[in-house]
């Protein structure tokens, strides 16, 4: 269960958002909306632990994130703008090193089954450089399917995905939330709220009014 309290983020001396608080319980999907530059990606990177926030705290299972990092990363799958795959390697090799890095126990059958689910069954030993951007995205989704992570943090997963790909992904989210998983996703298109588990959060409500901040904190990020 993820809880964010009074989070504020600053990039290049510009306060993107402040006073942001929300909770993501088991079996819930949270969609982060906001125009470009509102700080969606920065928010996800702060939660995933890449960058640090100006203020506020993040809790994972009621414990401060900074003390349970290993546990958090065991249960978390991050998918950024870039697919995170090596173009010279085949999808199978890519998924193996990523799974090993994330400490998940996998074997060839699991990976083949995952590739099959994303309709890339015959592509497992073709170098990724021959695949299209959409197919690369689906290889990354195969990694998502094969990983036991509870929390999915997906940054704009719908880019370079065609129509039925989007509905396939929404079906995947529902399946994941039924098994008690959590999905934190940013995207411009509104998601279909099939089981009433979807909540939306618009970052612009938390954008700071930037006329003369009274007194900026002493501490930097």
């Amino acid at each position, binding site marked *: 269960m993820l809880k964010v309290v009074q989070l504020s983020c600053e990039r290049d001396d510009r306060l993107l958002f402040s006073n942001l608080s929300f909770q993501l319980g088991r079996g819930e999907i949270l969609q982060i909306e906001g125009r470009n530059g509102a700080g969606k990606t920065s928010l996800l990177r702060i939660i995933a632990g890449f960058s640090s926030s100006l203020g506020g705290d993040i809790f994972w299972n009621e414990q401060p994130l900074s003390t349970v990092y290993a546990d958090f990363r065991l249960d978390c799958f991050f998918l950024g703008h870039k697919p995170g795959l090596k173009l010279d390697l085949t999808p199978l090799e890519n998924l193996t090193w990523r799974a090993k890095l994330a400490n998940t126990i996998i074997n060839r059958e699991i990976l083949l089954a995952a590739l099959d689910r994303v309709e890339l069954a015959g592509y497992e030993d073709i170098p990724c450089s021959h695949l299209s951007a959409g197919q690369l995205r689906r290889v990354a989704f195969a990694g998502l399917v094969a990983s036991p992570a509870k929390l999915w943090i997906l940054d704009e997963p719908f880019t370079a995905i065609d129509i039925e790909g989007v509905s396939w992904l929404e079906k995947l989210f529902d399946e994941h939330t039924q098994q008690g998983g959590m999905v934190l996703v940013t995207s411009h298109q509104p998601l279909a709220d099939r089981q009433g588990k979807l909540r939306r959060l618009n970052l612009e409500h938390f954008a700071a009014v930037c006329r*003369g901040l009274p*007194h*900026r904190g*002493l*501490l*930097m*990020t």
Partner: protein
Amino acid sequence: MNWTFFHKLGSPKWFYDISGKWLPWLQVISLVLIVVALVWGLAFSPSDYLQGNSYRIIFIHVPASFLAQSVYLMMATAAAVTLIWKIKLADMALKVMAPIGVSFCILSLVTGAIWGQPTWGTWWVWDARLTSMLILLFLYIGIIALRGAIHTTEAAAKACAILSLVGVVNIPIIKFSVDWWNTLHQGATLKLTEKPSMAPEMLWPLLLAIVGFYLFFMMVMVLRLRIEIISRERKTRWVKELVS
């Protein structure tokens, strides 16, 4: 443990007000000390029996070398404070100290080379001290170049902090290996600076010059730090009132 005092210590606004008070004093004292020391060393202290009057360069070479090395150590401590307690003022100090340090490092190298000419007959000598000062110059240039290359202030702050810590770990290693390398190739050449066995009328102006240079450094650092504070806190209200 109540850390508010410690964090108040690091608040840019508090530093700006405090430094405003004792800055003029610092300026006066440092300039007076430097003038007195150099005049004393140049005009009144006797000439060296071996090197004649060329040894008078010592009154600027030694303070500059000491300053170049201790400024790097100060930068390393500021870097440690930036990384551990994440106090913005420490990063501003780190950013501000680098150009001053590099200017004194260059001064030390140039005066060392000029002094080498009458002593050894060549402008540049691969003497252990001059070579490690040259390598210290490379470390300074590395930090300034890295600061210039990264544009986001937070990332630049921490990257330079890490680089100066890595550099400070390497300074003893470099000094040791250069000294060892120097003795291997040239044997003990005439050391540029005699140990305290110098005559008292030579030693006093030197100590005075060293204190004067350190105070001068502190004065310039505080001046630059205040400007850095204004530029980084330009969005806060107290800076806007200050400026308008």
